[in-house]
């Protein structure tokens, strides 16, 4: 954040000089309430993360929702078949209530994928998360379809969405 000199009495509240993401990551990587250590081979060696802003749910700096200023998240919305795409705003890091820019999407899959791609990569927001975002979108979308049409009764049953 570039600190502008204040002119006389006119004080403007600019964003917090945040502790940088690297520092936060060092503190949080070993121990945080979202950390899940399960599913290793005989040991609990895989590290997952239950944060909502983590696209792969992996406990790593790149994917972390805690340590990054810009995060992307894709989740199922409350309404049926709708998906929420939320990106965090960089200037509002210390205002958790207004931190996320949420948009509910209820389009067909290809359109949603285009929208997600534009948001994540198109405006250079977090181009390194594009694949993760698209992968998560298809996973969420598929799970919504399953939720709607019920779990398959046999392995060879086709996935039909019963309206």
């Amino acid at each position: 954040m570039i600190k502008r000199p204040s002119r006389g009495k006119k004080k403007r509240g600019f964003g917090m000089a945040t502790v940088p993401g690297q520092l936060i990551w060092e503190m949080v990587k070993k121990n945080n309430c979202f950390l899940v250590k399960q599913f290793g081979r005989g040991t609990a060696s895989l590290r997952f993360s239950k944060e909502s802003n983590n696209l792969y749910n992996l406990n790593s700096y790149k994917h972390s929702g805690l340590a990054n200023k810009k995060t992307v998240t894709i989740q199922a919305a409350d309404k049926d078949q709708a998906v929420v795409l939320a990106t965090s705003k960089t200037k509002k890091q210390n205002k958790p209530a207004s931190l996320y820019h949420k948009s509910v999407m209820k389009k067909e899959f290809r359109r949603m994928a285009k929208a997600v791609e534009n948001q994540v990569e198109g405006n250079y927001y977090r181009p390194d998360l594009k694949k993760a975002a698209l992968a998560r979108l298809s996973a969420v979308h598929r799970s919504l379809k399953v939720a709607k049409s019920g779990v398959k009764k046999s392995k060879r049953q086709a996935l039909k969405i019963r309206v």
Partner: protein
Amino acid sequence: MAAAARPLVSVQPLPASLNDMATDHVTTVALPDVMKASIRPDIVNFVHTNISKNSRQPYAVSKKAGHQTSAESWGTGRAVSRIPRVSGGGTHRAGQGAFGNMCRGGRMFAPTKTWRRWHRKVNVNQKRYAVVSAIAASSIPSLVMARGHRVESVPEMPLVISDSAESIEKTSTAIKVLKEIGAYPDAEKAKDSHAIRPGKGKMRNRRYISRKGPLIVYGTEGAKMVKAFRNIPGVEVANVERLNLLKLAPGGHLGRFVIWTKSAIEKLDSIYGSFEKCSEKKKGYVLPRSKMVNADLARIINSDEVQSVVKPIKKEMKRASLKKNPLKNLNVMLKLNPYAKTARRMALLAEAERVKSKKEKLDKKRKPVSKEELAAAKAAGKAWYKTMISDSDYTEFDNFTKWLGVSQ
């Protein structure tokens, strides 16, 4: 001055319906310097583990335990082990082993004593560093969320509410206030997590456990809000002048969700001072200096000052390639010796020539000779013979006339 460079925190107003005094419009407070102090989870952990030992009560085994017998060893020769045995007779106890940690009814190994060192001394400066770190960490939403508090609906961190909260008297209004400022989900989480502790602690007067909710810090002494807020499960209250690390970083983990009142936050400056100015309340105390003032590595690396001096990125990585044998691989040979191409070409052509001519010769030899050629060959032979004779003057010598058949 220094205040001009510090960001501002807005004070959340409480709705007018909750108190008689008219609420002030949104005011702002400058962020106290404490919140910019360096965050040191290692120091906090160390201080926390030591400070939490200070409220322990001693426990020990009775000093007489296991010794209230007059047991004596029977010595050798009685076909029993040599442990002291209880003297006397007429009861089960007679003859049983005593005094040893292995004996039933004997005293334990190393009986616990009350004069064990229960409390720990921690340097005052370290204790202050830890508290200051914990306060700084409480203003960072990531850390507070990582500790597990539900702060998604909190309007701003650090959360400051107006002083009218200090005069709240009823718990019901207190809950309403929490809901207004978005702190209620955290208190709710604490309430829902009330459960019976697993393990023996149950029967040792530690029956229930629950999560920690928000910590509310007030500024004025004797504020009525203490009574209003303290009964809400999970919520704790503290005065700014007496902040406790065990409350600010429960479990040694940084990032408790703290709600400040306006007067509390204003007092923080005078209690902890700033990086240059001494604190007023703590004699000669200055906020700890960090090793790196600007710890944002990404920004430093990408800054103009660094990038202008840095060498360009090596995009082309030269890797070790597989060595190919020039004697077998023509292209590699050419890389070493360009003339090899023409040399080889000439060699090939010469070879082809040789082959061709040999073939022609052989063909000629194998072909049956025609009559004209035969006659020509014979005539050529005869002619040569004649020239040989004339050249060497064979006719002059008499000896040769006998067999020199061919006379001119």
